[in-house]
């Protein structure tokens, strides 16, 4: 492996760890200590897709995500403290505590938002791509969603419109096998998800979502093509969610050992450690150092977030209405 490639891999490794530790903090600390409300949807097991795909994006690109957004937003560089604070509902949160875990957004990073209404981000991403195209800008939009979202009418309508209007958007479907408790075979008549693009004449591929370099390489190629041609594409990545759908999932719907077994075999972080770091002769000490380093980074962001103030109820409706610049005659 070339040195730049090894550098890249280490970079990905750090990012995947950062996401993992962030979410482990939510699961192991924030959950038992009731430090957040509603529910939080973790992507433990899916980090390779987040990191591989997001790193294939350019600065001028935009992304839309879903309720399961920590991987995408952190990979794109969302401030850890701002993300933690948001999930805690603090005023220093990235959305000033208005959104919470399901709604992380950061305009400055091109994160146009997380949409927990399943499927509804797909037309919105398509619209953002239309804006880029009409403005003659060179970015593309990357839209993440789960396999369950492919059954929504919104998905279908947007796929057609994106393909019809040649819009620079890439749809990244993370097939983690479940939509809450509902496995693919209970909700989809056909399991070749990439075939859903056939009726729109849209390019589509199905790939392994556990190998971060493969995800990165394929996304780079696809994003690049979309950037050049302004044609949309669908990428379906097979992955797996190791933890519950959200932080209060009984997991009654899957065999007890399924997650453990898939984890043992396929954890995308172990995968990097095993397959690559060993192969590339990276010093194991270096991996340990990285882990300690990232863990520390996450911990300290968490601690700072915890000290942040709560929003002032007097500011409740602030920011609801945009000040308009309309000046009316007479």
């Amino acid at each position, binding site marked *: 492996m070339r040195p730049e490639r090894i550098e890249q891999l280490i970079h990905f490794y750090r990012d995947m760890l950062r996401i993992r530790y962030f979410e482990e903090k939510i699961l192991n600390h924030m959950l038992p200590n009731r430090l957040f409300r509603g529910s939080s949807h973790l992507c433990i097991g899916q980090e390779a897709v987040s990191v591989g795909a997001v790193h294939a994006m350019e600065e001028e690109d935009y992304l839309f995500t879903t309720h399961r957004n920590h991987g995408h937003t952190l990979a794109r560089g969302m401030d850890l403290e701002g993300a933690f604070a948001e999930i805690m509902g603090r005023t220093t949160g990235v959305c000033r505590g208005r959104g919470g875990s399901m709604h992380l957004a950061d305009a400055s990073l091109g994160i146009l938002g997380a949409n927990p209404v399943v499927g509804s981000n797909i037309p919105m991403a398509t619209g953002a791509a239309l804006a880029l195209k009409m403005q003659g800008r060179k970015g593309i939009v990357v839209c993440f969603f789960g396999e369950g979202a492919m059954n929504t009418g919104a998905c279908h309508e947007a796929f057609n419109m994106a393909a019809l209007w040649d819009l620079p958007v890439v749809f990244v479907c993370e097939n983690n096998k479940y939509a809450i408790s*509902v496995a693919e075979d209970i909700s989809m008549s056909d399991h070749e998800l990439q075939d859903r693009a056939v009726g729109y004449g849209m390019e589509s591929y199905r790939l392994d979502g556990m190998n971060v370099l493969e995800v990165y390489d394929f996304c780079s190629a696809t994003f690049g093509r979309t950037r050049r041609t302004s044609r949309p594409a669908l990428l379906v990545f097979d992955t797996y969610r190791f933890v519950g759908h959200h932080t209060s999932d009984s997991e009654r719907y899957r065999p007890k050992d399924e997650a453990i077994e898939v984890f043992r075999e396929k954890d995308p972080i172990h995968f990097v450690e095993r397959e690559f770091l060993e192969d590339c002769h990276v010093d194991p000490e270096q991996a340990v150092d990285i882990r300690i380093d990232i863990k520390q980074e996450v911990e300290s962001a968490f601690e700072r977030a915890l000290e942040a103030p709560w929003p002032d*109820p007097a500011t409740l409706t602030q920011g609801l209405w945009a000040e308009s610049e309309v000046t009316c005659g007479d």
Partner: protein
Amino acid sequence: MTDRGREVVFAQAIRTALREEMQRDESVILWGQDIGVYGGVYGATTGLQREFGEDRVRDAPISEMAIAGVAVGAALLGMRPVVEIMYADFLMHAADAIANQAAKWRFMSGGQFKVPAVFRSPAGGGSGYAAQHSQNIESWFCHIPGLKVVCPCMPRDARGLLKSAIRDDNPVVFLEHKSHYTYRGPMPKEEELLPLGKADVKREGTDVTLVSWSRNLLWALEAADKLREEGVSIEVIDPMTLFPLDLDTILESLAKTGRLVVSHEAHAFCGVGAEIIAQVVEGHMDLLKAAPKRVSAVACPLPYSEPLEKAALPDADDIAAAVRQVVR
């Protein structure tokens, strides 16, 4: 009725109604996301798939338009589908099927068809699910002729009303409060049906008529308790069914009290509170000794953060303050 029955949680009351009706009538069938093995995200259907099989209790794809539209079609041929839309916010995706199709199919056909479908959905805030998982949009469906709308609070009522809704030959939107599934209350052992369109006086009183429903009714009762100590006697009315609305029960109460407060968790603007006040003043302004008042959510999307959400939603203190104003 003498048997108050044992205490059950709200989810159990819903489950009991579904179970009893499914046992009674083969044509009662359910689908919705995660209602099978998972038992529904709020546990309202736990065990029903095991008892009634995968044909009668189906997990559905994330396809709200079809979940509701398929229900309308099945109802036309004599089934009694009771579908669950996981959050009432997503009724917006099913709005055409419910408000354009189910509500109108019978009328447009000159009375040829019936649409005995029930659309169940957890509504409301209070648990930090933020703006897109917390709405109360009962007034949308009340605005559409052809639909009945039910918003129960007490477990016993929920069971009796859901059973009636299932047997009703008209489409019914049945809204449950998502932060209320673990609320406990008595439920009689024997079967009980409650009529749609009949309000219930939850607390008798003589000074103020306080109308409230769904989980918000708890805050109304709390306010009534509080104010009793201050010497104000409040009659608390739970319409339970919002359409058709039982105005008579409200008017009867107003004849005694002359004072009206309506409180709901939904936004005020074009909410059911506005309708109740309008109906009262249009035909019966003479009953009023003071201006009526509404107590409802602050006009903004529901925020996530706890202190903000608390500030946005009405509570017993807000209701008590409004009552104090009308008795002043």
